[in-house]
């Protein structure tokens, strides 16, 4: 009965979404204030209905109700409770429902926190959100209903892919979806602006908050996914450049470009058309990402062809949303430009360069991702693009980006002096030179490694310098407190970028690896540590059997014990699948990483050991980067509040 209630709630949500996408739009055109407010109520109604539906699905999973098709397909009575719940969104149907849930959450937030917005703008933004909701709800109800029942319920379920039974993957999809769906809000703002025919600095301030929140979600989602790949797949790598990862990375690249250029609109009233275009494209790539990840639209052409209803619907949805928005853009945007021009050497000039580099990087990744898939679909020929292509194209684009990132915050808006900015970078220059010498002295880094580490130092010191300069001197404390939160957020995010770059570079060039057949008692020396295999034994988990090793790591120099690692090799009987659980000891500066492979007591076990320098910096860095985004978004809300308060006070006076 609960399941049917969920289904019913989803249908009600569809009706509300239909109302929301039509009535407020019409009311905004007519200037009918009463009907414009309808959008707020329908947005909340949708949130309530979709939450109800999602809870119904979670309930079915928690009770292991195998009469529901998706539960039987994706869960199993042996699973730990938390993973039963997480299985609610671990498949196509459930993840679509999660997507819709987050969409309605954003809708309700815009409805509530958008009080300061002009009524017609808010009504139109919500109407566009409603249209997206209609598309997704129709898709779910018509082709991917999570609530369909099986005529004969099986005794037990099929289980979930055991690789996915992992805390990293419990939170990865919701955060990623949070980012994807957040981009829908930027899209709605852009389409609403195109319909209204005007883009104002105020519009940009409103839109920027949502872009920042979406961007922070994407940052966390992507880094969690990467972290999961790092410790679960067990070969010490963290990024594979595979289509699924790229699909989430491209919206992030565009969102990064967008949040920088939307600032230009807010401050200087320029780059309007470009901002609108980026908003549309960012969401388009998010849509593409959603479908690639869950529906196998492009990763498996077989899947696409075997379920034409879904495939055609997805292409139709993409066509209407993206094509419609771009058509609107082609018609309306040319009349909306204007605003201010700019000097090449200025803050906006540097931000334009940032945007060009990010857009080019996105195009590079897009080509590298789609080209092999399209080629395979059309001719059946398989080509492998892979990491060499991305390393040769993407990495060189990021190098000038890092160099400019350090300079841009020191440039003034309108017109800046390059010389004056360079003079302020002496400290960063010294730090970069110091790191350069250090890296050359350590050796083994190669040209790309040297450049990477040097740029990271340059960026970190320059960012902190630019921040300190804003409050240093007499009355420092007062100025520090008075600094807008965006400045803090930006500084944190830029420093985090430096930390991430250092982590990626260091682990790429200095990773130590040993693959050995080890018997109990054998030891291996790697990167100044001695790794000794003490014991291998069988153990049993809630729904798996495992072989676990005890491995003691000591410092080779003085023999002091650093850690005992417990790598595991698990076997999940339901899925008939093996997984490796790498054992990781982190020192903050490096990870000691051990993987236990197949083997037996006579000939030994295949053991892989890695020394991954600075890898933890990537995860810390990503978390701080997202934090920077959140702080910056909070700043926007704060300044807006105070402005509204001032306006109210003036009105009273």
């Amino acid at each position: 009965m609960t399941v049917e209630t969920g289904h019913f709630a989803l249908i009600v949500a569809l009706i509300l979404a239909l109302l929301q996408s039509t009535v407020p739009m019409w009311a905004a055109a007519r200037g009918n204030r009463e009907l414009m407010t309808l959008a707020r109520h329908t947005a909340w109604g949708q949130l309530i209905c979709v939450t109800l539906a999602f809870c119904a699905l979670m309930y079915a999973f928690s009770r292991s109700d195998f009469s529901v098709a998706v539960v039987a397909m994706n869960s199993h009575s042996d699973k730990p409770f938390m993973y039963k719940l997480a299985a609610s969104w671990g498949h196509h149907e459930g993840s679509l429902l999660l997507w819709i849930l987050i969409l309605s959450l954003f809708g309700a937030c815009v409805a509530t926190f958008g009080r300061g917005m002009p009524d017609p703008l808010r009504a139109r933004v919500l109407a566009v959100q409603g249209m997206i909701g209609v598309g997704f709800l129709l898709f779910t109800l018509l082709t991917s209903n999570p609530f369909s029942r099986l005529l004969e319920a099986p005794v037990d379920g099929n289980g979930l892919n055991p690789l996915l039974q992992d805390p990293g993957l419990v939170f990865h999809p919701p955060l990623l979806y949070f980012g994807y769906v957040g981009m829908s809000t930027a899209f709605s703002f852009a389409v609403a602006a195109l319909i209204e025919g005007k883009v104002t600095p105020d519009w940009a301030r409103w839109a920027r908050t949502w872009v920042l929140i979406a961007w922070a979600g994407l940052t966390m989602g992507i880094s969690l996914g990467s972290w999961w790949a790092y410790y679960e797949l067990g070969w010490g790598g963290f990024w594979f450049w595979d289509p699924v990862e790229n699909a989430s990375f491209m919206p992030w690249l565009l969102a990064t470009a967008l949040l920088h250029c939307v600032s230009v609109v807010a401050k200087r009233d320029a780059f309007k058309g470009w901002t609108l275009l980026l908003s549309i494209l960012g969401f388009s790539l998010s849509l593409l990402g959603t479908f690639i990840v869950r529906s196998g639209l492009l990763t498996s052409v077989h899947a696409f062809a075997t379920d034409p209803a879904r495939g055609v619907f997805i292409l139709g949805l993409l066509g209407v949303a993206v094509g419609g928005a771009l058509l609107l853009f082609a018609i309306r945007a040319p009349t909306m430009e204007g605003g201010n021009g700019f000097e090449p050497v200025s803050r906006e000039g540097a931000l334009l360069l940032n945007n060009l580099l990010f857009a080019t990087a996105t195009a590079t990744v897009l080509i590298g991702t789609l080209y092999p898939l399209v080629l395979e679909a059309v001719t059946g020929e398989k080509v492998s693009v892979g990491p060499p292509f991305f390393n040769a194209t993407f990495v060189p684009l990021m190098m000038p980006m890092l160099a400019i990132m350090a300079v841009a915050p020191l440039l003034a808006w309108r017109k800046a002096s390059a010389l004056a900015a360079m003079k302020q970078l002496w400290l960063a220059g010294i730090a970069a030179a110091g790191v350069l010498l250090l890296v050359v002295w350590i050796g083994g880094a190669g040209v790309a490694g040297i450049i990477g580490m040097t740029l990271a130092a340059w960026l970190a010191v320059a960012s902190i310098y630019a921040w300190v300069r804003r409050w240093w001197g007499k009355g420092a404390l007062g100025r520090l407190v008075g600094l807008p939160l965006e400045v803090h957020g930006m500084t944190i995010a830029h420093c985090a970028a430096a930390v991430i770059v250092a982590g990626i570079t260091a682990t790429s060039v200095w990773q130590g690896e040993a693959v050995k057949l080890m018997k109990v008692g054998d030891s291996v020396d790697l990167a100044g540590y001695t790794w000794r295999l003490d014991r291998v034994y069988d153990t049993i988990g809630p729904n798996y059997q495992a072989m676990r090793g005890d491995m003691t790591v000591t410092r080779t120099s003085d023999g002091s014990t650093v850690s005992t690692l417990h790598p595991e090799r698990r076997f999940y009987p339901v899925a008939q699948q093996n997984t490796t659980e790498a054992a990781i000891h982190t020192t903050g500066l490096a990870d000691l990483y051990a993987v236990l492979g197949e083997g037996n007591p006579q000939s030994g076990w295949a053991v892989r050991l890695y020394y991954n320098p600075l890898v933890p910096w990537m995860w810390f860095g990503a978390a701080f980067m997202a934090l920077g985004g959140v702080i910056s978004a909070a700043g926007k809300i704060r300044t807006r509040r105070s402005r509204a308060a001032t306006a109210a006070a003036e009105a009273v006076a």
Partner: protein
Amino acid sequence: MSLKRLPYILPLLIFAGIGVYLWIGLGHDPRILPSALLNKPAPEFNLPPLQGRARLDGKSEELPLTTASLATGKPMLVNFFASWCGPCQVEHPILNDMAKAHDVIIQGVNYKDDPRRALIFLGQLGDTYDRVGRDQDGRVAIDFGVYGIPETFVVDGKGRIQYRHPGPLSPEIAQNTILPLLESLK
């Protein structure tokens, strides 16, 4: 239309281009992709046998699977499978049925698989293959132009490829296409 408007229309045009390209590309059903090898002899290969099988026909010989073993004067099937592939499990009973009820000769190519798992797979589902060759590195699958696992080829008595079916076999395909084709090749 003035030239100034072009930059604004360009994104739409590019999107339309990509859309048409994807539509044409994805509109192709991989099932009807003809094999480039149609009517040509099967590629040269020589695969070591999967050892330790429990064959349902009671024979115990374990011979390597080679190009020569496809040209025996009788038409046969060549089936690419792996224990890690779900659809292979689905189609396997159909293969067994063809072998048992219609005396169809089926050669198996065990694609990128752990031989122990392959034996478990065959032990559970029933082993009606004539020979099973181990394509450990997937080389032979590439030479055959295999699109995905499972995939099945019909080979005539002279070892020439006559038909290719990507994806799992269905009872309808077996009954309406494969069995009549084998009959006509006899």
